[in-house]
């Protein structure tokens, strides 16, 4: 049964509409102010993602598990072999295999496994004074208006696009060629979003020019200007539709102030990643202080997809580090509207989270609690999660980690629990009310490392179903130098 939106959500929708009509003027004024404000420059940095609420990217199926490959680099001359099996009690196990290698001239990886979303291969080698590769493609051009956009409207950069991203995403599959350091010249041909595309990009000093085209004759172009820490991009197509984004950063000591402003035509959608086209207009500010004692980050963002469809977000996060393992973090977040171009509009959300992590002589204990509510101060909670994790270090690199979480998710809402496997990160979708225990055991074995995971899910006394059956994973990884 659909519930009537609370008054706060209605007011937020009205505010969104008013803001939407005034946005072009706001964008122009904001751009001028920001251009005047920021006179220094240095490379646009990817801000570490918040440890707050985890969400999969917009191209992922809502309410389903999402897996992404960890960007774990391999030393030159190294080869990595991995074999694994996973399954549920009473079901046929699923096997996975993978090989990665990195030589001076040749590198690549192959993964295979039934129903493995990361299955596939990629290989790259030196050729024609550059590097050529076949397989997974996840580049980032400029601000990402055509390729490599961030998943969320408030994020400064995509965490799974580009060479330095912490995760290997998959924008498409095909072949690419890069020439020069950091890809001064880049060409690609591949299949993106069920469409064959070819494109290229060249950079001369701070200037960059790129173009994408498909077989139907649709063409999009990108002009970027990246003098140090500022980064601007203009994207346009043959129909005259355009989008522009400017990102400016200024640092003073450990503090950094960053601002992004985007404007343009609503109808321009990236040929390669249409689901990541993002809002046509947005404004975001971020202030962070990466001091020695910890980090403070404040964010504010407004965005607009279409009339009646936009959103706003304000977030504050503070993390105090005591040493390598010990830290305390708290965060607050308020959202209005929706971060997605389509689908249900969640409306007003306000929540907070806190996390503590301590370590003593080989034992690590972490506690976390988060709540997100449909009313102020986290009331009318739509999701609540309490989690505890204990980790014991054993001899010879062995260890035992137990994570237990209790969650409650309101109907229609999604919650994603982060799981870290040996070669990937999984956002596990859960719903309803339940509890989950994950036991991870790692030990040296057969010349490599063995990771065994057992997941138990369910509520005491609940009826047994496929979702509540224990899930297990066994994985063996070995790294060796090939010469």
């Amino acid at each position, binding site marked *: 049964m659909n519930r009537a939106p609370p008054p706060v959500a209605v007011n937020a929708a009205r505010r969104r509409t008013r803001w939407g009509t005034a946005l072009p003027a706001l964008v122009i004024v904001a751009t001028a102010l920001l251009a005047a404000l920021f006179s220094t420059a240095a490379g646009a940095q990817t801000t570490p993602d918040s440890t707050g609420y985890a969400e999969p990217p917009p191209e992922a199926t809502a309410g389903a598990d999402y897996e992404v490959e960890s960007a774990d680099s391999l030393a030159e001359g190294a080869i990595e072999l991995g074999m694994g099996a996973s399954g549920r009690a009473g079901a046929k196990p699923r096997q996975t295999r993978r090989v990665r290698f990195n030589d001076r001239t040749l590198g690549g990886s192959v993964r295979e496994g039934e129903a493995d979303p990361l299955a596939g291969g990629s290989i790259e080698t030196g050729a024609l004074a550059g590097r050529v590769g076949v397989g997974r493609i996840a580049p980032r051009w400029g601000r990402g208006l055509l390729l490599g956009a961030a998943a969320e409207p408030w994020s400064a950069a995509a965490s799974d696009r580009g060479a330095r991203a912490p995760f290997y995403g998959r924008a498409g599959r095909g072949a690419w060629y890069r020439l020069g350091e950091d890809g001064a010249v880049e060409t690609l041909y591949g299949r993106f979003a069920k469409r064959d595309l070819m494109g290229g990009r060249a950079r001369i000093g701070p200037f960059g020019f790129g173009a994408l085209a498909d077989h139907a004759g649709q063409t999009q172009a990108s002009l970027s200007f990246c003098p140090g820490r500022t980064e601007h991009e203009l994207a346009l197509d043959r129909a005259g539709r355009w989008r522009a984004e400017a990102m400016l950063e200024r640092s003073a000591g450990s503090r950094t102030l960053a601002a992004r402003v985007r404007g343009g035509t609503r109808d321009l959608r990236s040929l390669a990643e249409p689901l990541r086209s993002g809002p046509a207009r947005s404004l975001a500010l971020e202030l962070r202080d990466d001091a020695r004692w910890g980090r403070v980050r404040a964010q504010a963002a407004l965005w607009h997809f279409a009339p009646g469809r936009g959103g706003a977000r304000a977030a504050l996060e503070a993390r105090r580090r005591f040493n390598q393992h010990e830290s305390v973090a708290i965060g607050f977040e308020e959202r209005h509207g929706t971060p997605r171009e389509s689908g249900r509009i969640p409306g007003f959300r306000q929540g907070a989270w806190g996390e503590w992590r301590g370590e003593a*002589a080989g034992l690590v*204990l972490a506690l976390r609690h988060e709540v997100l509510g449909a009313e102020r101060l986290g009331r009318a909670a739509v999701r609540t999660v309490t989690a505890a994790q*204990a980790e014991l270090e054993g001899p010879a690199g062995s260890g035992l980690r137990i994570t237990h979480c209790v969650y409650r998710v309101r109907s229609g809402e999604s919650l994603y629990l982060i799981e870290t496997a040996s070669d990937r990160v999984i956002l596990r979708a859960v719903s309803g009310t339940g509890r989950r*225990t994950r036991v991870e055991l790692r030990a040296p074995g057969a010349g490599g490392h063995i990771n065994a995971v057992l997941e138990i899910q369910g509520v*005491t006394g609940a009826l047994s179903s496929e979702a509540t059956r224990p899930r297990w994973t066994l994985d063996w990884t070995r790294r060796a130098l090939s010469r």
Partner: protein
Amino acid sequence: MRPAWITRMAGLAVLVPIALLALAVRAVSQDFTCATPPGPAASAGAFIESGLPPRGAGSALDASYTRWFGLPELETRAVACRAGWRQARVAAGFSQTGETDLGWSAIGLACGVARPTGGAGLRAVARRERAIEPGSAAASRLEARAGAEVGWGAWLEAARRLRLWAAAPQSWSAGVAPPLDRPLEVGGEFECDGLTFWLTRSAPSGGAEADHGAGVALRSEALIAWVSARDRPLRGGVGLAGSARRFFVAAAVESHPELGETVRLSLGLGGAAR
């Protein structure tokens, strides 16, 4: 008894309103429940109950008696022992609850490691109904007459005099459902001049909301007295424990506004309430 201790005791008596004594504490433990404040404790029963290993090594033996909600037909009798060597801790116990025709027996095991600044342990309890009617489902199927649960706990000194813990006593269960649903409990205690303050939060369970607990304990060399309160519904309890040489005895009374009082008695050798 030192004069300072008397002063604190008097202050506590003034601070604790009489009304609090009338409140009650819900039973958050079951087969091996002991008369101790929440969190890591030295008793073997508490180790089996929560999975939180005691800080100290050595051995201990304790017995406990609990009358739940004032019902004479619902009593738990338990005996447990523990041993420690270097960092390793193990405990085992046996318990019986209820009368012959409507009760159950349980055995519990716990093992873990503990250091002065932290510890972690696993616990397992298996139960079996005491009276099994011939021809019934319980007689024909094991899962209809017996049940088991496995859980864990860990604690750590987060800072000087501040200790945090997490206990998930029922991470996995099978067979007959446990008599009490015990979700993840997170807690912390702070010690200050002989006073220990604690806060606990039990995660939501089933359709119920999370509940919270708070308490304060006053300790001397040989005595510990504590008062506690919980919400949903608001209730409280008091407890007193004393030790001499290697023996200890403890008693706690907790009451529930609707269900009545729960009385716990513990006595042991080699351990202590904390």
